[in-house]
């Protein structure tokens, strides 16, 4: 291969930046003709620099090659060497080249002097960084010193991993605040809670290769055609190439995913838990389960039931609200008894799906010769019993022994590019620390303190005179979840909010309340700081706007739905005065932590001295070097052997966290931190992404594709993990070892059907379901700016059943007023059959700021995960 000019340019630049001994992604982009034969990589590149990157939109994580000439992106094409997607893109990814160059880019810090101008187009004036940082940091510090329960950060599944890691450290260790929660609360929280409940590890065991291997696909509340376009292409490839491959789609409305499914089961909203339990019951009654697998691998539990719903803000503090997460061990027989009421007929009655169809699906699941892959997204997660539905899908797979096997399993798909990578892996949740650790576990806090060089007990709550911990003084008590943060804002109980990489003013439910359009006006009194690239509705409510770099204007890493971590290189500089978010976090931290001490030493230096030179007021090195240093520290979390103090706590060397039996034999509590092992930074720089855990075998770092499944590491199986943590270093029945689960046994928890918070009635006769469509991503703050892309879907519509539409004497595009218990909004109606709504069901997208459908969306959330239910608001529709 010839050493082309762009490789020379790239390697020279890297060398000059002092990035010693690290690879360069650009050099990985092979000779000029490689894209031609790859089936879609696209054209060749001319002079310029090519960077290996990843798309910034959905959770699929399509590889993207970015070419720049003279500091401007001239081309983006699919990366044929990205194993997740092989160069395929969707229409959003095709337009990434234009993303950075749209009109209206924020390039100067902005300040709002008069908070009464919030929500209007005006009121922000330009400011210097110094003024904006001093103002925002002053407000944050004052709030922190006064009452730190009144401050919060709303983070994101679109925030690169190292940025999320440092932000979390600033909040949790710097200010000892757990009031940081990500927008992933709105999309993956139910999945996360179920992962932790069932497996004690937050991750899918499966990978994208399973879509090439499954015999049957079952999509539950997932419109993959629109929401995971390239992954859906993979599902279709399997269906078209594999003999007899079938696809069942279970949904509340006909989608484009339904269109190509072999069988579509249209169910009444909220009835999925009944269907899943009927399937499990059928398996149990007909003794189709795998008894040997159950004996070896599973434990059974029941949990708190009759949860009710958060009809008001007192729910979390109520008796039931505090008990929602409790579980009790039970026997398989008890599980069977609890399932017994869920006959096919009972489920059919609740769901409107025929008993015969449910039986057919149960047989398909139970067929011993069939590899079944269940896939789900927001229909399951954004659900008032979303955690339960996640459980119930795992229950089916687990009792059949059909989980964590190639082509066979239950795969929770993420919605954001790094929901898995950042929001979950580095712990930007109110209850979490990095790498699956949680704040309310003392061993987890000790481990974190060891990695962060904090004195032992630093993260604990202070003790009162009776030696009782005072909640909120340290971080032993979880902070406010997303909805609680915004409820408190609306009530005037918060003084400071900061957000980055999200657009809460459009994406939250019940915006009527949260945007101060009702009687609660707290949003006007809360000091709000927003990091943004383009103006959004959130910046219209901001007191300070920090202009920041977007996508490849800085180096970062994303983690996609299949645990693939991919470092994307900086390709271009941010415009004007826009800065890297990390720079903003550290500039704020240096101000807020001024004069603070940790163990007698300067607090800022203890936490961030390794990347920021306080004297110089700048990073200690290049962006590459800073990312490398952050990664090196983060790496200790999943490679505890790198630091003895951390390793000792991981292994419970001092016998502090384990249990002693009656004979006095001590069983240590081991954290098994290598379970989610990451590789050194340079390994990522020399790859197109790796799926964790990444294991070093004979000097080579190898991905794990199939978690807990035995087989050769080089073939993608979890050989090294099982050797390290499996029972006697071996797998169990079925070649599986759930080595991260307590006792190596995942939990099958019986979870009943309970009704939605509201049912359609005379006043609000329609179910209103919200979601995404392919062309526009989330709140449209990126996709709607690109003219050629926005032109593909410029308007949001209320998709209606043709019968309902005609009965109201509507014409295409007529405006209708949609009203719920929570608010009202005017939208345009259509009966176009892109979305096929059954009678009484309507669907809307949330990308258009001028048609703010979340004004009517209920603030009902899953009582356990606190994830809002965007799928079951009851509404009235009236022609305008």
């Amino acid at each position, binding site marked *: 291969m010839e050493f082309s000019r762009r490789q020379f340019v790239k390697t020279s630049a890297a060398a000059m930046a002092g990035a010693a001994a690290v690879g360069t992604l650009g050099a990985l982009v092979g000779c000029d003709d490689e894209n031609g*034969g*790859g*089936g*879609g990589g*696209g*054209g*060749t*590149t*001319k002079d310029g620099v090519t960077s290996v990157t990843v798309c910034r939109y959905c959770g699929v994580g399509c590889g993207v090659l970015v070419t720049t000439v003279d500091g401007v992106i*001239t*081309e*983006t*094409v*699919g990366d044929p060497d990205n194993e997740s*997607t*092989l*160069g*395929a*893109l*969707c*229409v959003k*990814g*095709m*337009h990434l*080249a*234009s993303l950075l*160059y*749209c*009109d209206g880019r924020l390039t100067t810090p902005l300040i709002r002097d008069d908070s009464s101008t919030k929500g209007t187009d005006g009121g922000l004036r330009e400011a210097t960084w110094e003024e904006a940082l001093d103002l925002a940091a002053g407000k944050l510090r004052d709030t922190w010193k006064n009452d730190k329960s009144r401050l919060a950060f709303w983070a994101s599944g679109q925030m690169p991993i190292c940025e999320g890691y440092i932000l979390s450290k600033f909040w949790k260790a710097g200010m000892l605040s757990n009031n940081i929660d990500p927008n992933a609360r709105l999309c993956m929280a139910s999945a996360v809670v179920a992962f932790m409940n069932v497996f004690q590890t937050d991750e899918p065991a499966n990978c994208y290769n399973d*879509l*090439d291997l499954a015999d049957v696909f079952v999509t539950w509340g997932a419109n993959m055609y629109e929401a995971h*376009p*390239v992954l*859906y*292409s*993979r599902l*279709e*490839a*399997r269906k*078209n*190439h594999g003999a007899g491959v079938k696809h069942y789609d279970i949904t509340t409305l006909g989608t*484009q995913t339904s*269109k*190509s499914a072999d069988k579509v089961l249209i169910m009444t909203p909220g009835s999925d838990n009944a269907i899943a339990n009927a399937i499990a019951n059928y398996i149990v009654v007909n003794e189709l389960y795998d008894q040997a697998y159950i004996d070896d691998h599973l434990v059974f539990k029941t949990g708190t039931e009759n949860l009710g719903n958060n009809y008001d803000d007192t729910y979390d503090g109520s008796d039931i609200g505090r008990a929602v997460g409790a579980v009790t061990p039970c026997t398989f027989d008890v599980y069977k008894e609890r399932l017994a009421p869920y006959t096919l007929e009972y489920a059919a009655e609740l769901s409107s799906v025929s008993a015969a169809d449910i039986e057919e699906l149960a047989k398909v699941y139970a067929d011993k010769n069939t590899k079944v892959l269940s896939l789900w997204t927001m229909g399951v997660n954004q659900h008032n019993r979303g955690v339960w539905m996640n459980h119930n899908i795992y229950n089916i797979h687990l009792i059949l022994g059909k989980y964590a096997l190639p082509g066979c399993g239950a795969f929770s798909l993420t919605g954001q590019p790094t929901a898995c990578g950042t929001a979950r892996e580095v712990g930007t949740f109110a209850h979490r620390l990095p790498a699956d650790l949680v704040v309310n576990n003392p061993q987890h806090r000790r481990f974190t303190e060891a990695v962060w060089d904090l004195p032992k007990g630093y993260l604990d709550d202070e003790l009162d005179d009776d030696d009782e911990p005072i909640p909120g003084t340290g971080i032993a008590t979880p902070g406010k979840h997303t909805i609680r943060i915004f409820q408190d804002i609306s009530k005037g109980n918060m003084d400071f909010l900061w957000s980055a990489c999200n657009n809460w003013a459009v994406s939250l439910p019940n915006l009527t309340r949260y945007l101060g359009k009702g009687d609660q006006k707290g949003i006007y009194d809360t000091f709000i700081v927003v990091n943004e690239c383009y103006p959004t509705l959130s910046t219209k409510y901001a007191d300070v706007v920090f202009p920041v770099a977007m996508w490849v204007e800085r180096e970062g890493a994303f983690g996609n739905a299949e645990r693939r971590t991919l470092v994307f290189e900086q390709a271009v500089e941010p415009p004007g005065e826009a800065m890297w978010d990390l720079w903003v976090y550290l500039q704020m931290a240096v101000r807020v932590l001024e004069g603070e001490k940790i163990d007698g030493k300067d607090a800022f230096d203890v936490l961030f001295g390794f990347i920021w030179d306080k004297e110089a007021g700048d990073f200690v090195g290049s962006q590459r070097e800073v990312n490398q240093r952050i990664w090196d520290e983060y790496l200790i979390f999943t490679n505890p052997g790198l630091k003895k103090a951390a390793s000792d706590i991981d292994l419970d060397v001092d016998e502090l966290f384990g249990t002693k039996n009656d004979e006095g034999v001590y069983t240590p509590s081991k954290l098994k931190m290598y379970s989610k092992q990451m590789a050194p930074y340079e390994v990522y720089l020399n790859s197109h992404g790796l799926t964790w855990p990444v294991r070093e075998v004979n000097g080579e770092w190898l991905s794990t594709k199939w978690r807990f499944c035995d087989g050769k590491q080089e073939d993608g199986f979890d050989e090294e993990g099982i050797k390290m943590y499996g029972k006697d270093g071996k797998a169990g029945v079925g070649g599986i070892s759930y080595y991260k689960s307590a006792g190596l046994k995942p939990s099958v928890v019986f979870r009943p059907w309970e009704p939605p918070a509201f049912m359609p009635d005379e006043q609000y006769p329609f179910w209103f379901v919200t979601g995404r*469509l*392919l*062309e526009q991503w989330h709140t449209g703050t990126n996709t709607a700016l690109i*003219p*050629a*892309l926005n*032109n*593909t*879907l410029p308007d949001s519509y209320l998709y209606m059943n043709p019968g309902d539409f005609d009965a109201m004497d509507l*014409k*295409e*595009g007529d405006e209708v007023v949609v009203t719920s218990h929570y608010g009202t909004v005017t939208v345009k109606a259509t009966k*176009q*059959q*892109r979305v096929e709504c059954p009678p009484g069901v309507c669907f809307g997208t949330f990308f258009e700021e001028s048609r703010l459908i979340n004004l009517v969306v209920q603030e009902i959330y899953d009582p356990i995960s606190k994830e809002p239910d965007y799928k079951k608001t009851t509404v009235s529709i009236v022609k305008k």
Partner: protein
Amino acid sequence: MMEKENLSLAALVGAGFIAAQSILGALGGGKLLKPPGAVSDEDFISRCISCGKCVLACPYGSILTATVADGRAAGTPYIDPRRKACRLCVDFPCIEVCPTGALSSVDKPSDVRMGTAVIDERICAAYSKGHRCEVCYRVCPLINEAISVEFRDRPGDDIHMIFAPIVNEEKCVGCGICVERCVVSLPETAVTIVPR
């Protein structure tokens, strides 16, 4: 091809580009796309009195007036779908106001026969690159009838498919919304309407 497309995308932001495309679209091989209900060519030219009523009646501003550059058609109404396609109103206000029958009544939108969409597979992002585009399919008012999707192998890639939009000439009414929304702009769109 790819490079050209992306360079043009960056440039597309300029409205001038769209204007240039509109002119090309209007010329469309010399034959203009006439409003719904238009009678046959010769009949239309003789009946249409260039009164402009249909132009004013269109609630979307989709109907334009041909210029002298269009020769004999000068003064008659036409639609440039790239600029603004026909929205297929159920009550056809354009036909309603036509005093001469140049636009004659149509029962329902699916009976309209303005023309037929034709996809240029060489430049279509779905066909030529295997990207998940197929915007033309999803925006079609007669989705799954006039345009449907067929799965085809993606060359050199066993694990993804081409989602190929297929036009059903019997069902396509030629409203042109697919042309208006097409992401390809070289400046030719990957889908065009061949007027009836």
